[in-house]
């Protein structure tokens, strides 16, 4: 039996779980109905697109890079799906096209970063503008999706009933499935291990025979695909697409990853931690809604404060190690 022990790498993760529990229990004590199953389910359902996109960005950060295009790609995908369905394409085909587009978009950025040794920050910044602009070319404003697949199949058939009046939305199912798959990928696959190795020390990883180019391009491809999946989930959630939506989503995603224990320098991080980070953002938002009088921008203030606390915590841990 392995002894349970807190290594410096897992302390931030444990801390973020503790914060989540404190916030949630605090909410339950302060407000009636906060502890209801419905609120809990909505926490997953409402934040599913953020969660899926944040998982993608977590892989990029693990590899030592960054992806700023996430929000724009989610928005572009959502309007692309709405537009394609509007032109008569079957939703499944539209989703497949969007996912392929997202992956190709990520692969293109990854190739630029790897082959021309360009900084990820700038390449994905360019990608962000490109994707944002392309969204408006597809359709300049919000476009609702009217298709039985969306209206009945996804919203009704695919949701998991819990009680007679309550069911788990398919978006939440997507989020949980992505988290499980990504956790497996990060921990048990050669790809996941190579990503962590490159993020920790690219020069050493090269000497030790890790395929650098392939892995790095794949990381951005995966992030692009997951951003697109985030867009798909967003259309399930909103029953529409909007090229102007999700501005700054990538920054929420980065915040969620960091609060969940991923180091921005790369090499250290946990996929379930990112889910915890996303849920913390969601709980703060719900708390402010329940409170009722506070401006919704207080969510940002709380997240900002929390981010400071967590990066400070990580710094203290790293320093004590030295």
């Amino acid at each position, binding site marked *: 039996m392995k002894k349970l022990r807190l290594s410096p790498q897992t302390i931030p993760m444990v801390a973020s779980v503790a914060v989540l529990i404190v916030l949630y229990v605090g909410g339950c004590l302060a407000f009636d109905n906060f502890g209801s199953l419905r609120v809990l389910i909505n926490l997953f359902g409402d934040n599913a697109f953020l969660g899926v996109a944040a998982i993608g960005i977590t892989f990029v950060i693990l590899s030592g890079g960054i992806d700023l295009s996430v929000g724009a790609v989610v928005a572009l995908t959502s309007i692309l799906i709405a537009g394609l369905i509007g032109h008569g394409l079957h939703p499944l085909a539209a989703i497949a096209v969007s996912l392929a587009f997202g992956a190709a978009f990520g692969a293109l950025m990854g190739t630029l970063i790897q082959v021309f040794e360009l900084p990820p920050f700038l390449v994905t910044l360019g990608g962000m503008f490109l994707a944002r602009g392309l969204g408006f070319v597809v359709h300049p404003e919000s476009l609702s999706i009217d298709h039985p697949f969306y209206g009945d199949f996804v919203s009704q058939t695919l949701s998991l009933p819990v009680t007679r009046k309550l069911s788990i939305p398919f978006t939440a199912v997507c989020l949980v499935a992505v988290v499980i798959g990504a956790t497996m990928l990060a921990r*048990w696959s050669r790809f996941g291990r190579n990503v*962590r190795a490159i993020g920790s020390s690219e020069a050493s990883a090269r000497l030790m025979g890790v395929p650098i180019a392939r892995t790095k391009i794949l990381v951005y491809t995966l992030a692009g695909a997951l951003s697109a999946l985030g867009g798909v989930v967003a259309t399930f959630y909103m029953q529409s697409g909007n090229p102007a939506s999700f501005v700054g989503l990538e920054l929420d995603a980065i915040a969620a990853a960091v609060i969940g224990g991923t180091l921005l320098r790369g090499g250290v991080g946990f996929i379930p931690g990112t889910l915890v980070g996303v849920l913390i953002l969601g709980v703060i938002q719900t708390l402010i809604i329940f409170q009722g009088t506070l401006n919704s921008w207080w969510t940002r203030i709380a997240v900002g404060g929390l981010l400071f606390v967590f990066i400070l915590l990580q710094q203290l841990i790293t320093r004590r190690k030295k």
Partner: protein
Amino acid sequence: MSEPILSCRGLTKRFPGVVALDGVDFFARPGEVHALMGENGAGKSTLIKALTGVHPRDAGEAVLAGKSIHPRSPREAEAAGISTVYQEVNLIPDLSVAENICLGRQETTLGFIRWGAIRERASAALARLGVAVDVDKTLSDCSIAIQQLVAIARATDISARVLILDEPTSSLDDSEVEELFTVVRRLRDEGWAIIFVSHFLDQVYALADRITVLRNGKLVGEFLAAELPRLQLVAHMMGRSINEVEALQHREPPARPAGEPLVSVRGFGRRASVRPLDLEVRRGEVLGLAGLLGSGRTEVARLLFGLDRADSGEMHVEGKPAAMRSPQASLRARFALTPEDRKSQAILPNLTVRENLIIALQARRGIWRKIPRQEQDRLVSQFTRALGIKTSSPEQLIRNLSGGNQQKVILARWLATEPRLLLLDEPTRGIDVGAQADIERLLAKLRDEGLAIIFICADTAELARNSQRIAVMRDRAKVAELTGADLNEQAIMRAIAHGDASHPSS
């Protein structure tokens, strides 16, 4: 004597403008530790890099176990049977010990990592070396010594026959070095052919069976360690006669000069850094600072230079009260400091030799009074010649120079500011004997020209032969000051151990 497993003949490697390796023969035999010695620039690293495929050779042949090999990358060299452990640990700090040992080696089924198999394999590899480490521990949580052993475990966990240890001991303390050597001897006894590169003569004689000496890219000779006296080895490395080397080692420092101190401090200290102490240094004097790592040597230099602010005591420069509140103030007072950590605190790796050299002088003049290019070139050529800096051009990036030459450029940077007080923190660390001798000679010359020098050095023998007075630090306090007949290793060690040179019993 066993037959060589690795035989290299006529190895040659040219870089633009230099022949880094000129027809060198080298043999590695199973069950033997073969030390590769030479000054920086002698061709040691080039030979290693040619063997490991980092810089494939231009001419010559390398035969491993009867087969000619042409590695084009460290991976290919490893596959052929040559494993390397580098000076700076080249592992992944955030992965576990087990992952580091097995990374990239058949550890998955259908793309899934077999954690159990990895742990077993890693434990076995470490057990073969007689090392006990928790393989689930993150590598960066292990000491450098353990990381080095993990690197050896990784290197020997494949069916290779030749193990190259490229300066593996430079960041280890004595007991860690001994632990490493135990492992190396064990591997030798198992029949590995070990190639050992080190600057430390003691370590080479403690470990090596055979020594090959290179100089200026050429082979000087291959010797049995037991038959090569130390002095002869140093003479071979430097290309000088034994008499010259002896003269260098037994130089009498002149008596302490008369006159007022240039800099004196009373009760000078800083909380949690250096306990209040008195020090003074005159023009034309070398004051040595002795002490173990962490004794406060470096902190004293930082306080004097104003990098840290003293919170007690006073400082006088030429009899007038002065306070060094910042490095800028020190520059104006014409103080100079060459820090201990050359790589991260002294060189600007991506600037040229010229830019590195003039930067302190430019800083003193201020940004509006640019040093004319002609003047810059004159300074660079003057110092390159005076200090014997070996560089292909003043426009060469400093990071491409050897450690000894980098150190000389850093010295030149400060000498260009015509300092009155020179604070040298471990100026000879990690550089070869030749460059070290150059720097020691320069020290004496600067002293005779009337500079006040504070010299920090971990090597007590080096300290003793270069200083006219030695202040001994222990536990962040000055415990003794040695002069005259006490300027020897024994007295320094006694002072470090007991706090007093003259009464060993106390």
